[in-house]
């Protein structure tokens, strides 16, 4: 994985010193909250309902065990013993004190981490596939380019005061696990006619109050021109993106209002000016960064089959963990293991300091010291020997992290909601907890199969409800919390935005409504292998609408 050199270390050190000074000026009153706000936001510090919240970047979701231990240390020392992994592959601390922020940042810097640009109207932390560098289906490891993007976008002087926040995601696999079409810019590895790898560029995707699917603006940009091309998009957006209304300020609105062709023409014009200029990325540079991500020394092994059926008979919980939480690895004899942060009845994405330590230990022993954070708020051990799985599982059980529900109905995404978020209209974590209790039985979850439920506490859609196969959105109507249910969303390459089928439900009625949707699906699926989302696409709204609201 990427290692800071002296330059990177000095950069983060300077930045930490800079922000420490700003914190000092805020505490002394020299800076007003208004003046401090954009500065703290650029450093990942939010003011929440109860306290400040610090968001720490996990660039492209990759962590070492040393870094994970530091995150545990921060949770223990400056917070209430836990951290919250987010849908942006970041970790948030909900209770730090303003005066501790400089120490926290210094601690982070000591393990090559920071909180730069995890908020504010700038280019945010770049996200990618949690199985990058391990997945059997990827055509290129996206992390070197992710690292280059991280560097290029760090404190970019021209793009620090954009109309609105700006998110970039990339995937090296045609099976998109990074929801790139729901980002301001999405990059998908692509091949040109000569078989060379480059990037398809999507622009203008996003969730929030106006969900949009990203549009293909350029089918193939070679590595060497990627930065020039992105800078061209950024410049067009910075100059022409709307600033009169913060709800219309994302690039998706610009693309929507001006039309893809107009934006494309502007970007091409800009690109024609900068193409081949200083931002041209030499192959040596790509190789140099790429070397940091060289595959670890894998053993050469035969393909290892796992007899899940047999394991299930011996230990049902272990069996379903094997069944759900493993992802195929490109090297025979290895798998990627998803560590679910969705234990039944708990807050999605939360991990205690002890759990973080346990996961760090596992990474060190069984996964070449590597860890990933997924945008579905789980952790991943990317490179685990099949023969080590029993040991890994035992350790996870001990840490309370052995839920075998990855990809199942109880593996939900939920934003912090009313319990933590100042913007929320409704609670989301309690709803997630209720639903997961209702579907707690492993057999039941298996019967249902792959089904993604995503919950947001307000229209800002941090819980990505639009792309949930079933989405739940908290709204406020006449002083009570109501939940709107959407069906048919999909964050993958088959991107789709979920549809609202009717009026909202009160909190207590939500689990039963979900159950009715599930029943409608099970009753109508062609085979037990037809997933919910495929059945929905085949059947259309009608049966689901009826399940929710009865016949008219």
């Amino acid at each position, binding site marked *: 994985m990427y290692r800071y050199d002296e330059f990177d270390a000095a950069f983060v050190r300077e930045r930490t010193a800079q922000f420490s000074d700003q914190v000092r000026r805020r505490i002394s009153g020299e800076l007003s909250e208004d003046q401090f706000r954009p500065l703290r936001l650029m450093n990942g510090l939010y003011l929440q309902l109860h306290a400040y919240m610090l968001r720490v970047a996990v660039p492209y979701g990759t962590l070492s065990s040393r870094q994970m231990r530091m995150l545990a240390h921060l949770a223990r020392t400056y917070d209430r013993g836990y951290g919250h992994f987010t849908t942006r592959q970041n970790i948030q601390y909900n209770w730090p004190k303003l005066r501790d922020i400089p120490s926290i940042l210094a601690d982070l810097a000591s393990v090559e981490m920071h909180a730069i640009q995890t908020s504010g109207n700038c280019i945010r932390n770049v996200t990618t596939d949690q199985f990058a560098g391990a997945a059997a289906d990827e055509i290129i490891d996206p992390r070197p380019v992710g690292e280059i993007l991280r560097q290029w976008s760090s404190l970019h002087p021209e793009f620090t*005061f954009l109309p609105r926040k700006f998110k970039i995601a990339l995937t090296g696999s045609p099976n998109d696990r990074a929801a790139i079409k729901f980002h301001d810019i999405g990059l998908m590895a692509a091949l040109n006619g000569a078989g060379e790898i480059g990037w398809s560029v999507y622009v203008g995707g996003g969730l929030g109050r106006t969900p949009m699917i990203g549009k293909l603006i350029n089918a193939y940009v070679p590595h060497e021109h990627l930065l020039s091309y992105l800078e061209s998009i950024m410049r067009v957006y910075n100059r022409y993106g709307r600033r009169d209304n913060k709800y219309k300020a994302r690039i998706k609105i610009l693309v929507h209002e001006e039309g893809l062709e107009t934006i494309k023409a502007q970007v091409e014009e800009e690109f024609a000016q900068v193409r081949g200029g200083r931002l041209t990325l030499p192959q040596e540079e790509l190789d140099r960064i790429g070397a940091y991500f060289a595959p670890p020394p894998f053993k050469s092994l035969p393909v290892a089959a796992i007899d899940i059926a047999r394991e299930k008979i011996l230990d049902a919980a272990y069996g379903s963990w094997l069944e759900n939480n493993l992802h195929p690895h490109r090297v025979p004899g290895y798998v990627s293991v998803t560590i679910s942060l969705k234990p039944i009845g708990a807050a999605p994405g939360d991990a205690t300091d002890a759990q973080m330590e346990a996961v760090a230990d596992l990474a060190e022993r069984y996964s070449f010291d590597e860890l990933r954070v997924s945008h579905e708020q789980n952790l991943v051990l990317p490179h685990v020997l099949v023969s080590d799985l029993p040991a890994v599982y035992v350790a996870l059980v001990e840490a309370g992290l052995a839920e075998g529900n990855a990809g199942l109905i109880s593996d939900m995404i939920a934003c912090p909601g009313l319990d933590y978020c100042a913007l929320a209209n409704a609670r989301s974590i309690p709803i997630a907890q209720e639903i997961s209790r209702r579907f707690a039985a492993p057999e039941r979850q298996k019967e249902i199969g792959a089904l993604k439920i995503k919950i947001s506490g307000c229209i800002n859609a941090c819980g990505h409800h639009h792309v949930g196969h079933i989405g739940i959105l908290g709204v406020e109507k006449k002083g009570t919390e109501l939940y709107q249910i959407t069906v048919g969303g999909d964050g993958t390459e088959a991107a789709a935005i979920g549809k609202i089928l009717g009026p909202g439900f009160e909190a207590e009625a939500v689990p039963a409504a979900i159950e009715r949707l599930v029943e409608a699906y099970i009753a109508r699926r062609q085979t037990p292998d037809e997933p919910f989302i495929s059945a929905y696409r085949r059947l259309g709204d009608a049966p689901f609408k009826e399940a929710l609201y009865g016949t008219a």
Partner: protein
Amino acid sequence: MGLPKLAITPAKPDKLRALGVIALNGMFDEMDALGVLRYAIEEVLPGDIAIVSSFGADSAVLLHLVSQVDRALPVYFLETGKHFAETLAYVETLRQRFGLTRVTALHPDPADVARFDPDGQLWERDPDSCCHIRKTEPLEPVTAQFGGWVTGRKRYQTAERGVLPHFELTSDDRIKINPLAYFSDSDVNAYKAQHGLPEHPLYDKGYKSIGCAPCTSVVAAGEDPRAGRWRGFNKKECGIHFDFNGAIAKPMIGQKNLWKDGAFTADPFRAWAETDSPETARYAHVPVDVFLRNRVAFLSNPHPIGLHVSPADQVEQVEADLLRFASIAIAFPAFTDGRGYSTARLLSERFGYTGEIRAVGDVLADQVPLMRRCGITAFVVTHEPTRRALESGQLATVNLFYQPVGTTEVPVGTRPFLRRAQ
């Protein structure tokens, strides 16, 4: 000012002399300019006093007073070669009218002019140097010859002159006599009227403070008369260390909000006003749309002008005319509006504009380093903490960069998009 400096001057004789000078100040009625002048010329330093006059808009009063005491008092005029023809005519008018017998024009050294100002445009490039060769140098040999100088300075002109006495001791141990110290603007006008003094020919055309032609502009009604001087330059001091005559020596004075080259300097530019005319405007930042509508007129206007770029303006539209502008002001109506950063980069990097690019509006300390990287070289700053941060050199800045921006940053290490500020 001479007096406060005395406190730290160790030489005893100076102090005694200073006390003597202070004592002189009590001798005359505030408005007794003639008494002051007569006493100085006849009693204090007989034969050792001279005057430098600009022959500007308010020089007539002092010269008229001089003529009543001693028509043979040496009167020096800095003939910079850059004066209005009207000024040269006015020298003649006053000389004859008052019967002054020793009016001497001091010319710059032709060798200096040939060497430093071959095209006559030095005033525009570097007014400090221009003043140096045209004023400071020619005056130097003359200053050494006299122990006292008469000036036309007045208390009311600036806050800094609020304590101006009739007699002053300068730091280089000369006596300055300020007969008009207590005169107000209306006293001057009343005196002119009472004695029927001829007006400088340009006075009625709106020139209230007149120096060299290129460095003098019309003053708007209500504006500080001296605002017309050195409009267009961040001129700090005239370079004449011995301040004979306010009208000549001091550049315009005002609230210094323009941070440039490591200091706050007086800002020669002002905002475009409705009443400005494209043909004659000078030292105003013209909005892009106004410029485009009156492009031909602005291009034939001989005076320095600037351009004011609002966030939504497209600088591409004025690309061909950028050389016309001595300064470009990029507006940041709110610090959160980042469009100006793109504008600045286009101007400096793409269009190769090398003149002053300044940020105006909501300019805060933490944005300044970013602005600099994007090519902005000057900042109009009113926010107090930001002013302090600039002055104390305590901008919180990160000096290592991850992307190539600007025209002066150099690569460090091997990565193409890592740079460090020069």
